[in-house]
């Protein structure tokens, strides 16, 4: 305990510069955590039991992935913060998740479109990260991509069912696409941090992910009989800490336990 206190008191002057990957790993962690929380809000409300379980399972995979990133981020930062501190004791403006994942669940179609847009990006990013130069990040990606492939298959099949389903499901799907497609661009638009990491060779070039992502989206939308949305204006800001109003409410619930009973551990 004494040692920890002395480390904290000397930290501002003595701490080395955090590893340049730290903020990026934190961004990955925030992204998976926030989406996991959104999906877990479905628990007990899923349209049928099997899909209730699917949503909870996907939430659990993302939560486990988020923990792996937070643990690594805490080590990269090297200033004594733990995975719990990073997940539960930061404010909304410190979160680096893209805007898409904090969007409210809406109806099932809304959740499916959000999930499809994320899964398509997530799966292809993990595929690249697993052969990247940072061994720890590659190991987490190698593990997570297996799970992400199940997620993408699930959300792709649901997007097709809803699009090629009943007039009601189609109308809801169209509405969800009209609302959410604008958040897709942020996923692959690099921030200054990401551009820097790409130049250092620590992060794959997002532009290189686009052909595979676009091909998958085109295939799924064609199966769903839904026209490919025109490239819209991209809503951005989450990866730089400028969030929609929804994140604050989400964090109020997510962080309630840790802030009320400080010191709980994962």
């Amino acid at each position: 305990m004494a040692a920890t206190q002395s480390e904290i008191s000397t930290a501002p002057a003595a701490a080395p510069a955090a590893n340049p990957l730290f903020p990026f790993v934190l961004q990955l962690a925030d992204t998976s955590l926030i989406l996991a929380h959104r999906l877990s809000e479905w628990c007990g409300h899923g349209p049928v039991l099997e899909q209730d379980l699917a949503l909870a399972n996907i939430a659990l995979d993302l939560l486990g992935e988020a923990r792996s990133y937070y643990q690594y981020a805490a080590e990269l930062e090297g200033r004594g913060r733990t995975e719990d501190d990073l997940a539960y004791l930061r404010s909304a403006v410190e979160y680096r998740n893209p805007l898409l994942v904090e969007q409210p669940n809406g109806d099932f179609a809304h959740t499916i479109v959000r999930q499809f847009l994320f899964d398509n990006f997530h799966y292809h990013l993990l595929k690249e990260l697993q052969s990247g130069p940072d061994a720890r990040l590659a190991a987490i990606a190698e593990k997570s991509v297996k799970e992400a492939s199940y997620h993408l298959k699930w959300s792709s099949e649901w997007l097709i069912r809803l699009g090629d389903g009943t007039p009601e499901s189609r109308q809801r799907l169209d509405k969800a696409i009209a609302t959410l497609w604008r958040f897709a661009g942020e996923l692959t638009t690099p921030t200054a941090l990401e551009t820097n990491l790409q130049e250092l060779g620590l992060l794959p070039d997002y532009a290189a992910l686009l052909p595979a992502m676009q091909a998958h989206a085109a295939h799924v939308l064609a199966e769903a009989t839904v026209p490919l949305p025109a490239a819209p204006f991209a809503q951005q800001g989450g990866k730089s800490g400028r969030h929609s109003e929804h994140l604050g409410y989400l964090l109020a619930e997510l962080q309630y336990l840790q802030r009320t009973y400080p010191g709980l551990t994962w």
Partner: protein
Amino acid sequence: MVTTSPPAPTEARIWQLLEEVSDPEVPVLSILDLGIVRAVAVDGEHITVTITPTYSGCPAMSAIATDIRLRLLAEGYRQVTIHNQISPAWTTDWMSQAGRSKLEAYGIAPPIDGTASGHVLNLFGQDTAVRCPLCKSAHTHLVSQFGSTACKALYQCDDCREPFDYFKCHA
């Protein structure tokens, strides 16, 4: 008063003890059947057990680490380090043949290697022909890729009509 210290640990002995630690979610399987123990190292009194987590969010993993510690402690081994190694990533290919037989006898269809759901463009593809663990019929269908735990999918038998868990291939 005489205190007896346990015999010095050997790797062989530790492997024997680990066979007695079961998966809390699938209790018929030992952690060796599951293939999550990668290595055992003994250095004097100090034991290091290296395990590989199954699914990222599997809540059984911390329980398993605790159970390993408790099982070794019961033998008097106090200096135990559990090392988590995430690469290479766990795969059901590491599951033992004994484990697969035990699973089926317990009512869970064992994984069929080479059928991982990694082909994301194979949408609505043919379901894997999974044998019903109860009546052994191959006439079954997938209900959901996501079952009662992260490692299982839900199937139903078209002959005996029973729903059952399939321990899905994870390669």
